[in-house]
């Protein structure tokens, strides 16, 4: 049996299973769709190559998407219909609402985390144009709320970057390095998260995430994760990252009013 026909058979089986699930829960089904990339697979060259983007998006992210749908719809089928009304961002911070049986809670944690982490990851990057002023920005705008917060919580942008790099490099195994807003301590922090875990699980606000699963860099950099991290900084889409910080501004303003 060739690899291709096994793969095709598996995909077909997944589709059949999904259709059957739909038949059972027409009104309450969830269907997450694989988000489109904001750019072509080749757009992030030479920092991240076309083949990596193609496999990362169309295979890895696609698999998280279909497995998330399967897990959530199975849980709904088992009677947990409220799950179809909870936004995924919130559900990841309320995983106790997903039943443990059949490995469903783990599946939602892993595949839901994978789905969201990657959805943000693509948008958090943009092609690098060294000649174009608006596209060559490699740090947030001076005096933007995020820029000021980074200064306040890390001392300087350079220091933030240094800590982020260290955390991303030292992460053992598969995972993500996140800059996030810690609501309890009311400050920005850097932390490594294993597998597809996310700050959302503690109901904190992710600002910037870097995928350091080997599939993110192995074709291009092999074991040289540090080189991948260095290259990735050229791709960070600070406009998008600054927009991730807006909910934090709201929280801080609310606190001031109290």
């Amino acid at each position, binding site marked *: 049996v060739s*690899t291709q026909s096994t*793969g095709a058979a598996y995909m077909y089986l997944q589709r059949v299973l999904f259709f059957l699930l739909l038949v059972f829960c027409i009104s309450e089904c969830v269907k997450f769709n694989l988000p489109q990339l904001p750019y072509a697979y080749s757009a992030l060259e030479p920092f991240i190559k076309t083949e990596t983007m193609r*496999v990362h998006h169309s295979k890895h992210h696609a*698999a998280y998407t279909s497995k998330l749908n399967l897990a959530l719809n199975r849980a709904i089928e088992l009677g947990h219909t409220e799950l179809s009304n909870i936004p995924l961002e919130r559900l990841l911070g309320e995983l106790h609402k997903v039943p443990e049986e059949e490995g469903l809670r783990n599946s939602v944690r892993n595949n839901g985390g994978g789905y969201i982490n990657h959805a943000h990851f693509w948008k958090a990057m943009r092609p690098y144009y060294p000649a174009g002023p608006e596209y060559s920005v490699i740090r947030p705008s001076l005096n933007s709320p995020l820029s000021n917060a980074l200064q306040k919580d890390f001392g300087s942008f350079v220091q933030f970057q240094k800590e982020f790099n260290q955390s991303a490099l030292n992460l053992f*195994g*598969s995972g993500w390095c996140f800059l996030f807003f810690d609501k309890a301590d009311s400050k920005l922090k850097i932390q490594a998260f294993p*597998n597809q875990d996310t700050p959302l699980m503690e109901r904190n606000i992710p600002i910037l995430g870097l995928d350091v699963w080997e*599939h993110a860099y*192995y074709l291009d950099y*092999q074991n040289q994760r540090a080189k991948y991290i260095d290259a990735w900084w050229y791709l960070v889409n600070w406009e998008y990252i600054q927009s991730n910080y807006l909910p934090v501004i709201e929280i801080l303003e609310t606190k001031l009013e109290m």
Partner: protein
Amino acid sequence: RDRVSTQSTGKKSLEEIIKTQTGKAQSLAGQIWNHTFYWNALHPKGGGKPSGKIAEAIDKSFGSFDAFKKEFDDAATTHFGSGWAWLVRDDNNKLSVTSTHDGGNPLSEGKTPVLTIDVWEHAYYIDYRHDRASYVKAWWELVNWEWATQQLKH
């Protein structure tokens, strides 16, 4: 905190570190041990069906070779994130399949490794990309049954 204290008589063995330490020291010791074991558990002339003592042990513990293979394939392909799938034995040569995460090793759970497959993405990404199942399938062509037999209690 993660530094292994060396007593006056000298170094700890990898297995000691795996069994007694935690954190980074345990993970790294595990990875050294795991990879050395993995290279030995492969052979260019490997593959095929087992025979002799290892075949007997497999049949006794799983019912059949196919039942064992299915369990092993399942453990290897479904493990989420980095890790290893193992065939392990206890002191009575009762075999079972288990998996460990990242640099984990079954020695820390009192089990003795018999075979292993590395399912960290670096083990298969260049050759198979995301398609771990095809890598696992290929691994069966290389499995070193002689090595596995040597790991049994004699």
